[in-house]
């Protein structure tokens, strides 16, 4: 039963990111995993081993696509080649929803390959929401946008990040992929209370949650996805789950990747915060 119109997949539970070092283990041991998140761009290719592996994964597991380069906040119109390749992958995976970041990363056709932060302005809301709508209309799949971790703020911002997120998803009529680690990282970098963020997000639009680890430096925190989830992030996750109910949750671990079992064990810690599904009377 859907929790809300943007969270129709409450049975997905806890998944992990599909990463190359785990391919062999997954294909040979066939571990029980609720679902895998794939980085879309790794499979937006013509042919070859990555797609061959993906096809084998798809035979056994549910897969959700997560993108890193749609750049909804970039000034250009969506790249047609990018969209065509992404749509072909959507048809292949049958992803029930698709996520990418609420950020920008390119200007005038030049790409940074980074998730750069948006200025929180009404102009940016209008522009970004319009682009999300265009992409969704082309791909014909529900879209949820993810809050990014950031290290800079802009003078021109007219609202908080969570207000900006709410404005964009309302204007685009799309879902949210709420990354509670990113909220924590940004809260430390920008001196705000992360609970204000979690409490300020429109709960009825949250389609998915992300958890991850990060790295602390002397004057800032970097979102490195190379550590276990720390307690303050689990506390944010617990509060998010209280607000949004059972929601597909994904652990990201992208660098210094440990064994499959270790990553999966870390992800499954999320279950202690998730309420049992309602039993039909």
């Amino acid at each position, binding site marked *: 039963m859907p929790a809300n119109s943007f969270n129709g997949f409450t049975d997905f539970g806890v998944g992990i990111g599909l990463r190359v070092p785990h391919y062999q283990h997954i294909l040979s041991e066939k571990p029980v995993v609720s679902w895998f998140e794939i980085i879309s*761009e790794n499979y937006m290719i013509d042919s*070859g081993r990555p797609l061959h592996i993906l096809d084998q994964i798809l035979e056994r597991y549910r897969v959700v696509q997560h993108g890193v380069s749609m750049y909804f906040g970039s000034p250009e119109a969506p790249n047609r080649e990018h969209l065509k390749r992404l749509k072909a992958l959507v048809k292949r995976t049958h992803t029930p929803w698709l996520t990418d970041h609420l950020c920008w990363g390119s200007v005038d056709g030049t790409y940074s390959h980074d998730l*750069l932060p948006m200025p929180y302005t009404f102009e940016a809301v209008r522009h970004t929401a319009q682009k999300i709508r265009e992409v969704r209309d082309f791909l014909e799949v529900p879209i949820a946008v993810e809050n990014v971790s950031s290290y800079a703020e802009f003078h021109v911002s007219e609202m908080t990040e969570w207000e900006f997120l709410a404005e964009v998803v309302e204007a685009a009529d799309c879902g949210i992929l709420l990354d509670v680690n990113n909220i924590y990282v940004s809260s430390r970098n920008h001196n705000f209370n992360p609970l204000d963020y979690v409490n300020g997000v429109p709960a009825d639009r949250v389609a998915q949650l992300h958890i991850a680890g990060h790295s602390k430096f002397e004057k800032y925190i970097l979102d490195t996805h190379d550590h276990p989830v720390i307690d303050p992030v689990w506390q944010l996750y617990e509060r998010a789950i209280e607000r949004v109910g059972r929601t597909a949750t994904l652990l990201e671990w992208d660098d210094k990747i440990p064994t499959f079992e270790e990553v999966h064990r870390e992800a499954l810690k999320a279950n202690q915060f998730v309420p049992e599904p309602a039993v039909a009377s």
Partner: protein
Amino acid sequence: MNLLEIQRRMLEAVMQPLTEDEEMQPRTRDGKSMYEAAEEFIKPNDRLSSFERLEIYNRQYWFRVLSALEEDFRGLRAIVGAQRFEALCQAYLNDCPSRSFTMRNLGSQLERWLEKHPEYIRPRGALALDMVRLEWAEIEAFDGAVEPCLLPGDVLSREPDPKFRLQPYLQLLALRYPVDDLLLAIRKGNSEGGVASNAISEDRKPTRTRKIGRQKPEAIFLAVHRVDYSVYFKRLDGEAFRLLHCLREGNRLSDAVASAFEGTDIQEKKLLDVVQSWFQKWSELGWFCRPENGPQFISSSGSHS
């Protein structure tokens, strides 16, 4: 300052090369103070100035793209050395920033750029260029398109002088140095201690240097292809290379064979045997595509396929 102006200013700063100490440049490309430029659009906080906040992105950008190129061009890095490789990549990306949504294409212009900037690969320019060609071909062969194969049992159609289409992923290279062996040796060295890792093993370094220093010119012809989703290098005879190259150019079989063996005095019987054995092998490797217009072929049993 509107959205587009902020984005242009930020991207310009983020993509400006770092200093030798891996810090953000104190001046913008047009000579203004980077500190003032950052303050114009980025807020400071109680720990970091506007400059320092922008610098985080500047450093992240360069670490990411340099690391991607290092992964894709380990052979070139071994030839020119780690420091010169980094300088080369920085100059390349400064001239040819990414125009693709995927990092996979980051090195797509490198060969062409190096041809215009030989100063970065002297004194082993030809060797370095051959290595770049090979490493880029490997990327293309790894995930290039595949079409249904012409099956070994198929025999040629009513067409007396057919054209053959080669698999899009198949890469054909005419090289001046045996860089296939060199690249494999470099990778073997990497896996045993790693010229590409930060912890360079001192006892590996002289071996690698000797191997590269010993490289003598030797023209080779190479097919970079896939078998069971793994990329392989296959040496070809010059005639075989020319034949395949002519077929890829769209020539008919007879023209391709004539071009391939032009200037040789091979007997016709021998030529037929050689070409037939090549085609058998290439068919087994799946290098030929089935015709675009469907079942134009007749199977070996005589029925239409």
